[in-house]
């Protein structure tokens, strides 16, 4: 078979938040970079809030302080490798990247000083360091009276349950269900988001909704307020309804996640980086202690990506990049790197209690203090593949992805600056 050989300064494997951030950052410092991925990453599944540290294990109100404690207590945690400065820089970079991105006026708000507490679709209050501006008015610190609005056409959002739980949290909440008279019984959030991008449809929606609203109520809607121009949609809704309006993230597919993906992809492309999807890595070549190339699926023939530096950001067990087989052995299916944090032979991988920490949860690719894979010198690891965290319990996944992608790019850029590429 003919093999296409492609040469880059750095190849990033994985197109989730970590991979796209690493790719965009490397491209921005002038590296010739290519992001190859089997498919789109977890952005489309996640709420797109930047949860840096939500629980440790109690609810975190001041992430900067809590991060310092976490780093001191858990030197094996990804944040201990990344460092709090890189976390702060990455948040600032994201804020600028969103502002400069393809969605006009769209912005991220918040920082490490204090977590925002915004409602989940079931009415729990989720702690996030940064959220899309379209969610900001849901912050419980400012939320007094709210009307949670849903529609029967969206099975993925139930306003009554959300409002009832918010009431338990001390917020004056009630629910309204609006029949949007969509032509299909089933619409997902993306389908409805496209309607919201349409000004005429939006005007009708507001006319109907305003009849149901009471004085001084904020309005909470599922995260579906526009895919092309969410800032314009929310601004328009707020003007027409004369009150603050906010989005509440719900089940996948995630509209705000798709927006974040578009923003990061645009940043990568604008800086000259390449993105190749449908390119699952099928093999890797090593020479001595270095990775020399990876082969990825492509139409016709596999393509060989040759580079002096690689960033592995393909995810963990959830993406399938790390696999637990039926004989209870774990493998890195992408590059075959050594793992860390696995339960010992014969020890349980999981516990009976669903909400408890599972023994397998902190497993990941063995890395040194700079996110370098332990058994290959020129591979940096970013995102969920890093060991030591339980991101869905800590509410730290997006923060780790963003900051570790950012930090990996900085390490690679530094290495490259010693050679022909200038940082």
């Amino acid at each position, binding site marked *: 078979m003919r093999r296409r050989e492609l040469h880059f300064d750095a190849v990033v494997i994985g197109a989730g938040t970590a991979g796209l951030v690493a790719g965009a950052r490397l491209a921005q410092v002038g590296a010739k970079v290519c992001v190859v991925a089997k498919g789109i990453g977890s952005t489309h599944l996640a709420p797109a809030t930047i949860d840096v540290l939500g629980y440790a294990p109690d609810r975190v109100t001041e992430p900067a302080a809590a991060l310092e404690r976490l780093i001191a207590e858990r030197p094996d945690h990804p944040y201990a490798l990344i460092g709090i400065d890189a976390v702060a820089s990455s948040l600032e970079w994201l804020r600028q990247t969103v502002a400069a991105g393809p969605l006009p006026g769209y912005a991220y708000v918040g920082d490490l000083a204090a977590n925002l507490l915004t409602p989940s679709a079931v009415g*729990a209050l989720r702690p996030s360091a940064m959220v899309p501006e379209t969610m900001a008015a849901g912050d419980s610190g400012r939320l007094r009276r709210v009307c949670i609005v849903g529609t029967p056409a969206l099975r993925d959002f139930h306003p009554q349950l959300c409002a009832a739980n918010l009431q*338990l949290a001390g917020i004056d909440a009630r629910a309204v269900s609006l029949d949007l008279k969509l032509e299909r019984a089933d619409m997902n959030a993306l389908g409805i988001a496209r309607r919201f991008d349409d000004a005429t449809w939006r005007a009708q929606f507001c006319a109907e909704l305003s009849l149901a609203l009471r004085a001084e109520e904020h309005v909470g809607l599922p995260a579906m307020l526009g895919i092309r121009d969410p800032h314009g949609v929310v601004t328009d809704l707020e003007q027409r309804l004369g009150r603050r309006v906010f989005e509440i993230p719900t089940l996948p597919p995630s509209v705000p996640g798709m927006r974040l993906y578009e923003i990061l992809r645009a940043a990568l492309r604008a800086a000259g980086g390449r993105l190749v999807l449908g390119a699952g890595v099928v093999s890797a070549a090593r020479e001595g202690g270095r990775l020399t190339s990876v082969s990825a699926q492509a139409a016709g023939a596999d393509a060989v990506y040759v580079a002096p530096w690689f960033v592995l950001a393909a995810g963990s067990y959830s993406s399938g990049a790390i696999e637990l087989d039926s004989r209870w052995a774990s493998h890195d299916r992408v590059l075959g790197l050594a793992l860390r944090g696995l339960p010992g032979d014969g020890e349980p991988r999981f516990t009976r209690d669903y909400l408890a920490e599972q023994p397998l949860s902190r497993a990941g690719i063995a890395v040194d203090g700079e996110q370098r894979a332990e058994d290959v010198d020129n591979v940096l690891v970013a995102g969920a593949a890093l060991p030591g965290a339980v991101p869905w319990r800590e509410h730290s996944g997006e923060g780790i992805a963003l900051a570790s992608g950012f930090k990996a790019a900085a390490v690679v850029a530094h290495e490259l600056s010693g050679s022909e590429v200038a940082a």
Partner: protein
Amino acid sequence: VVALSTDVLVIGGGATGAGVAWDAALRGLDVVLVDRRDLAEGTSGRFHGLLHSGGRYAVKDPRAAEECIAENRILRRVAADCIEDTGGFFVTTPYDDPEYADRFARGCADTGVDCEEISAATALREEPRLHPGISRAFRVPDANIDVWKTVWALSHGAQQRGARILPYHEITAVHREGDEVTGARARDARTGEDIEISARVTVNAAGAWAGRVADLAGIEGVRVLPGRGIMIAMNHRLVNTVINRCQMPTDGDILVPIRTVSVIGTTDQHTEDPDDHTVDQHEVDQMLDDGEKLVPGFRSARALRVWTGVRPLFEDAKESDTETRDVTRAHALLDHQQRDGVRGFVTITGGKLTTFRLMAQETVDAVCRHLGDSRPCSTDSEPLPGSESGQSYHLGERLARKEAHLADEQVICECELVGRTTLQETITRTGSTNLDDIRRQLRLGMGPCQGGFCIYRATGILHELDGISAPDADASLLSFLQERWKGVWPVLYGDQLRQARLDDWIFQGVLDVEHLPK
């Protein structure tokens, strides 16, 4: 205290108890059925779904084989809607004693089990994933039976004829007046209220728990030895025909395609406590290895869920062998008037799902003897509600129904194609606030995502419709997640672990259910 009076009180809402209720109701008797939990939540709901042809017992237990084939033929008529006619194979794999096949064929001929030898090539053409090294193959009329559907049909049928079906009513006392059992007291587990039920005859159909009920009646020596077995549901129809290894019955030698999954079973461990649902890791490993012998590549297929069931094996006092497979699988009908001189009390235990109707018939015959009122049984000819057409279930049924309403009905559970209207009707009809009960009714949350997407939706709908409080709705959601996890984690690997992680992200990351306001 609520007081009820009836002809027949049935204790136990498994297939046997529901079968007794249906049989007795058909004979014109007034019936009250109680179960400490939901219907079919004990042994009945915890088996592999195999409607035996009798082939499995043809060599070892000819009488059981004869009963199975007779009942198999009857159930295909009267419970057609609950049965998918998959057919079955007995195959001699390279791991089996080749001598057994001839004994098997003779045994089938002797017991009347329809059995046709086919070439290994034919078997492999029909079931290409079977072990290519099979040397002989026999076709038998095995099938699968949906036990929940069966038990609902039995209980609905009985209700239509006036029976009162009371799930979540646990017996706290059995009343004796001298040498006569006159009824029982039950506690409503949901309200805590007691009800007094006076009955002319009380039937102890508590299966693996029958010894405890007999104790309450002051009857001695009814010992039921629970034999615990595990089953694993694989996320695909790895085969479309029931596959049995052609050997003396042992562990892990049956693979049953049912609904959208295939179930491998089973093991056999003696246990003291019928409520012990421990899954041993080595049993899981053994089952997966056994799967490889039937279908190479079994270990790389996706395992969905593991569960255990306890066989109610009635102990023969003369034997004390704890190797439970050797204790009789035959059912035991104890007429306590004959056995203990106690009138108004009958125990039915042991047996197997395939013969539940026969067990019910014999039980109600005994009930009629107690009543001194001989009435003929008609469960062998009267179809169950839903089975009147005689059309057996086929796999595409739900999809076909769904396709007819694609634009106008929401799908709440994509895996099992449960529509919003169906869910709402079920919540309203059952008045249940327990998502796990609804799961058993509708198979909600039983597919590959194990409730990842549908359970938030169902909780929202339950809350809107039932008017239950948010804390109750939240508790139902959390208990459903815990209940699902119980069967998931011991077989969590490969793609199912990916799925479980997505579910973790949805429930813990996106919804943050762990931190709901209290």
